[in-house]
């Protein structure tokens, strides 16, 4: 589904990713862990198309398409969706506008007509109930005045509505208390499906107690230094990152 090969990325002249390779197949949940500054967030930002990241070499393909040639919205329409670590507040744009515009854009890309209002309402109501959000959120401006946990839940809500093929979640656990973490994790787990890939970026193992990954990768200095299964995450939790860093250096 997603294939990243020997990716080199610089930000403001500084090389952040130095030959990262990663393959995510449908049905798999991958967790990318690593110390601060290793380039964890850079990977998902580059896949989503954020400006300011220069790909100097390497390739990213998604279902055989060259991602780096696609516009930002084309990437989303192809099925790649990024949940932000720091969701942006968008004053004045109601959540319901965003959800409806996004869903209709997706339907238009698939040659479908706009979703009829009653069907849309039914869909949205079931999804906000899943995220334990109040219906009033729909009429509120996107993320404006939301608490940290509410913002993260809102990101997952968008995922539940848009049902991406590849869900990328950047530090979705940061700033969450345990209750919010459970709600967010339940939301992510409900996305697990045979035809969907999930890419979690996280610093802490804690999230992985709730969302069990199939593969765990440790990112050190712009490269994947070590890969394993969920046991690797537990080892990182007890031993920290230093030993991987040392192994890599050796």
């Amino acid at each position, binding site marked *: 589904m997603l294939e990243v090969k020997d990716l080199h990325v610089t930000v403001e002249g500084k090389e952040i990713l130095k030959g990262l390779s990663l393959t995510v197949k449908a049905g798999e949940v991958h967790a990318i862990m690593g110390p601060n500054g290793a380039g964890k967030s850079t990977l998902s930002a580059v896949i989503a198309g954020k400006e300011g990241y220069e790909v100097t070499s390497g390739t990213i393909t998604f279902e055989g398409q060259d991602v780096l040639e696609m516009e930002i919205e084309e990437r989303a329409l192809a099925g790649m969706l990024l949940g932000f670590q720091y969701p942006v507040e968008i004053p004045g744009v109601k959540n319901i506008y965003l959800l409806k515009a996004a869903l209709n*854009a997706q339907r238009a890309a698939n040659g479908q007509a706009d979703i009829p209002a009653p069907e849309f309402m039914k869909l949205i109501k079931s999804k906000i109930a899943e995220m334990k959000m109040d219906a009033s959120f729909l009429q509120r401006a996107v993320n404006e005045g939301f608490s940290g946990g509410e913002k993260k839940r809102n990101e997952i809500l968008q995922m539940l509505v848009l049902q991406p093929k590849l869900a990328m979640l950047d530090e979705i656990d940061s700033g969450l208390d345990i209750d919010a973490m459970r709600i967010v994790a339940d939301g992510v787990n409900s996305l697990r499906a045979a035809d969907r890939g999930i890419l979690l970026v996280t610093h802490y193992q804690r999230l992985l107690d709730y969302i069990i990954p199939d593969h765990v990768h440790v990112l050190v200095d712009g490269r994947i230094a070590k890969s394993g299964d969920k046991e690797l995450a537990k080892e990182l939790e007890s031993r920290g990152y230093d030993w991987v860093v040392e192994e890599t250096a050796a």
Partner: protein
Amino acid sequence: MSDVQTFLDRLAERTEARRQAHGPEPTWIAARRQAGAARFEALGFPDRRVEAWKYTDVRAIARGDFALTDSADFSPASAAALTLPIAAHRLTFVDGVFSAALSDLGELPAGVAVLPLSQALAENHEAVGGPLGRLTGVEFSPFSALNTAFMEEGAVVRLAPGSVVEKPILLQFLSRANAQPVMSHPRVLIEAGARSQATVIEHHIGESEAANFTNLVDEVMLDRGAILTHYKLQEASLKDLHVASIHVEQGRDSRYTSFNLNLGGSLVRNDLVVDLNGKGAEANFNGLFFAQGRQHVDNHTLANHNAPLTFSNENYKGILDDRARGVFNGRVVVKRDSQKIEAHQSNANLLLSDRAEIDTKPELEIYADDVKCSHGATTGQLDEEAVFTLRTRGIDEQTARGLLTLAFAGEVMERVELEAVAERVELAVAGKLPERFNLSGLVEAAMSLHDD
């Protein structure tokens, strides 16, 4: 022939025609006309050297040759298409001429009078002569002088103490596509008695090819504890010329809320002056202007804090596209001894094109020492991070920019209590971005969801 002389000649013809048709006018009216004409002749049209007109060139008006009309003919079907879909006490004027056919006052509560100025003068001209011109004299500007010289028609709204008008009072000004452009000089006089409460909507709209000149003067008096919400929805054709001088006088504990919503017109100038004369008086100025093409919209506001414990809040937003030009001049004057007042002002502008221009100037003059005042002005483009976020959800760039533009206007609109007005403006803003943003469908859909 000078620009001024064209108008004076027109005035002489009109005065003579009126005398022949109706005989002599009451002396006070004749005297004011003369004073207005004299003042206008002395001042002439303002040029750009006059500070208050520094950014606004009125030559399109000065060089015009505008006729006056006595006809209020307007196709009822077109009028129905233009009118606000709202249950209201309605007075309609066509190019300044009262149209009984398009008016429907319905049943007004006891103690409430809403009538055309001509009728108010015919019934009891002395009752009009007292308040009329008291706030907006001929001194205010060449345009107020010109209005005074030409005034014939308009609306008089009288609210007896304690009266409450549930439905809005809608004053509708329709502009026609005439072979020769016409001018009108409407007067609106609102006298709100103590503790009375009402909503007045002034709606300026017309045929899309209309190219007329409207020179409006509003005088609004709020007695102790009166509450008035005043909408001015200006959706005139893109060729119309529109000048409005609005003066408000507020007594103790009164509350005046203005929504100055400007979407149309080629050249628009609004002056809004509020005198806060009694303790506890509060004035709220909400403004939105959206201009594109070569539209020019100038808003000058002035809050005079003449008494202690008075409050003013101002929030104006402008959206400018293409080569449009906007002016915002918000002035707050706090008199000596007007202690414990609060005055807040903000003006935010969004430029959608690099050829659009805004001149924004907040002015504070404070002569008291125990006051709370703030002001701020920002001008910028759309938040690129927000554009990016929307695009990552699959929304194309133009729709994303449209949504954010609408959102910018939405921050003023969410204070609008009348749904019909809010929807009208939201749809107009969305619809004004047709080929680039095309959001009307989305807005309509979201509104229908809201109604569910």
